């Protein structure tokens, strides 16, 4: 079998991305009696538990710019971000009618309240507000988190009618470890040779992992990485930037393309953090729930949705990302009305200022149509990097 080209893989991923009916997930479910699908919202959920229950974790990142929101506005005022309203739209228009459960991770007040709304709107579907600790001591936050995970595990056992064994969990952890390694490999490739794996492509490839079974996605990742490395593409006179603030409501694809068009190489980002949340492999030996909790407490990504207990550490993750990827600046792109991202931003900017890293900031919505102002702002940023850099 010949390896598919990047454009073939990307085309497939784009199809998955545009499919607001989640056809592949529907087909997966229909393929075998008794299969269940559990939907989850950003930012992070231990998908391993769902996988171990023999179910398909389905990432729901809003409706994007292809969904015309008709009913969603009946649920949300104009000053609330888009993702909950497009998610509700997906729900009330029946696009999620095959989903057997929904998880609302603790990320902000909007998603939190959405969990209650879901209970009102779809009383017959299992839904859970998935609380996570914001304190990171083993005895305190750890115990609480293990409690939450075990509760969830028990819920899934009830739904599926069979036990989730530690063995199954370990197996799932292994599968996801591999998937995370591949995602990280793709990110590393993009950071090193961004022209080979443009951000808009990498985005689609990683995003496919939200709707595909993880094993299938890992194959896809491998294929894309191999194809990207073997194709030759022209090097552009672009500047390297890290984009941040997009951890929940996803930017429209055109926004990512516009950034590239205006002269940016995106070398790191916080899109769909669930795919990269845990840093490094989760150990396979011992109590799997304990291991997942340890990874969450001590080896996980930073975002605005997390409390940073250590003042000195605030924002350092961003400085490290810049250093590690050789970026020349940071773009803060936040969803309009996203309190976590927007409240965090001034603090992060202060950290960057102190580190002498240039940055700019703008807002978007998942359905932003007009890209010209974004091109202009990103373009001006790149202009000033380019005109004044030593080269």
């Amino acid at each position, binding site marked *: 079998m010949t390896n598919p080209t990047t454009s073939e893989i990307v085309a497939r991923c784009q199809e998955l991305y545009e499919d607001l009916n989640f056809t592949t997930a529907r087909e997966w479910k229909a393929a075998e009696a008794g299969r269940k699908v559990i939907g989850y919202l950003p930012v992070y959920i231990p998908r391993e538990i769902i996988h171990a229950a023999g179910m398909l974790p389905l990432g729901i990142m809003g409706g994007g710019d292809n969904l015309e929101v008709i009913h969603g506005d009946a649920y949300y005022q104009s000053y609330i971000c888009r993702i909950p309203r497009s998610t509700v739209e997906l729900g009330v228009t029946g696009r999620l009618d095959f989903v057997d459960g929904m998880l609302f991770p603790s990320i902000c007040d909007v998603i939190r309240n959405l969990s209650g709304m879901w209970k009102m709107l779809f009383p017959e579907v299992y839904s859970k507000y998935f609380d996570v600790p914001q304190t990171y001591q083993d005895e305190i936050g750890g115990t609480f988190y293990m409690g939450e995970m075990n509760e969830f595990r028990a819920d899934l056992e009830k739904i599926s009618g069979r036990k989730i064994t530690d063995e199954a969990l370990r197996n799932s952890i292994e599968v996801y470890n591999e998937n995370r390694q591949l995602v990280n490999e793709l990110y590393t490739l993009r950071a090193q040779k961004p022209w080979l794996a443009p951000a808009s492509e990498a985005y689609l490839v990683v995003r496919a992992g939200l709707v595909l079974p993880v094993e299938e996605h890992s194959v896809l990742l491998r294929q894309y990485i191999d194809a990207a490395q073997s194709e030759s593409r022209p090097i552009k006179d672009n500047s390297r930037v890290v984009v941040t603030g997009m951890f929940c409501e996803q930017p429209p694809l055109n926004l990512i393309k516009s950034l590239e068009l205006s002269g940016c190489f995106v070398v790191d980002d916080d899109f769909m953090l669930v795919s990269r949340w845990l840093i490094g492999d989760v150990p396979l030996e011992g109590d799997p729930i304990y291991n997942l909790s340890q990874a969450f407490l001590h080896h996980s990504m930073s975002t605005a949705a997390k409390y940073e207990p250590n003042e000195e550490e605030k924002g350092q993750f961003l400085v490290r990302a810049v250093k590690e990827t050789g970026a020349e600046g940071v773009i803060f792109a936040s969803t309009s009305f996203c309190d976590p991202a927007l409240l965090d931003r001034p603090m992060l900017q202060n950290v960057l200022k102190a580190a002498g890293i240039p940055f700019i900031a703008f807002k978007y919505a998942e359905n932003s149509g007009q890209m010209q102002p974004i091109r202009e702002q990103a373009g001006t940023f790149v*202009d000033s990097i380019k005109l004044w850099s030593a080269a």
Partner: protein
Amino acid sequence: MTLAAGIDVGTGAVKAAIFRVEDGREEWLAKSIMRIRQRDPMQLAREAFDQTLEEAGIKESDLDYIATTGEGESIPFHTGHFYSMTSHARGARFLDPECRAIMDCGALHGRAIITNDPGKVTNYKMTSQCASGSGQFLENIARYLGIAQDEIGKLSVSADNPENVSSICAVLAETDVINMVSRGITSPNILKGIHLSMASRLARLLKSIGVKNELVMMTGGLAQDEGLVEAMREELAKMRGVTAEVTSHTDSIFAGAIGAALWGAFRHDKLAASGMHLKAS
């Protein structure tokens, strides 16, 4: 010697300029402006460019760099593209080397920019995706009041009791203006009121990017409007902690084109120095 052209494709007008740069001396050879008025901007860009070539008495192939700015990214014959704020800042610095802050007021957007000494943009902000308080907005109102565009400024500065205009929709403003007319408010007072309301928005934009005592140069089409320039002065004077002066220039509308041409020349020389040649095609 470097010859460079700048073409600024805006939403209201296309502007073009040609420069000769030699030993740091910048000589402006030609300029041209064409209002778009529902015509194809790309074609107008060509026409405006050809006009400048003719005026400068040179051929396209004599040019070392053709720079576009504004919405000119897709012009086929450019050497490179600079984004509006980059070029406006540079153009303003050419028109008045003293200025450090730039307020560009075009047909749809307002852009506040700060530069450091070498002309590098250090901070900026654009107005949002609502056209309230834009050039188009003023144009609509003037049209309704039956006032020609070049009359606006003069009338506005003659106001004796400006009407208080809160920020209103650029499209629905008409109704509010009708309201004012029917309450017997004079055109100068209406215009001044609108200028003040626009200016206060723009002044806030300037302050938010950290303008304190820099000389602010107005660029773009509305810089021609002395009423708005005056209103900017008044609004900035009202702001605590800001002592910035405001200036404009008769060629302010060309700032983008000028800046693009000069950056083009700069980039050409820089690349040439490193042995690369990007001859205009």
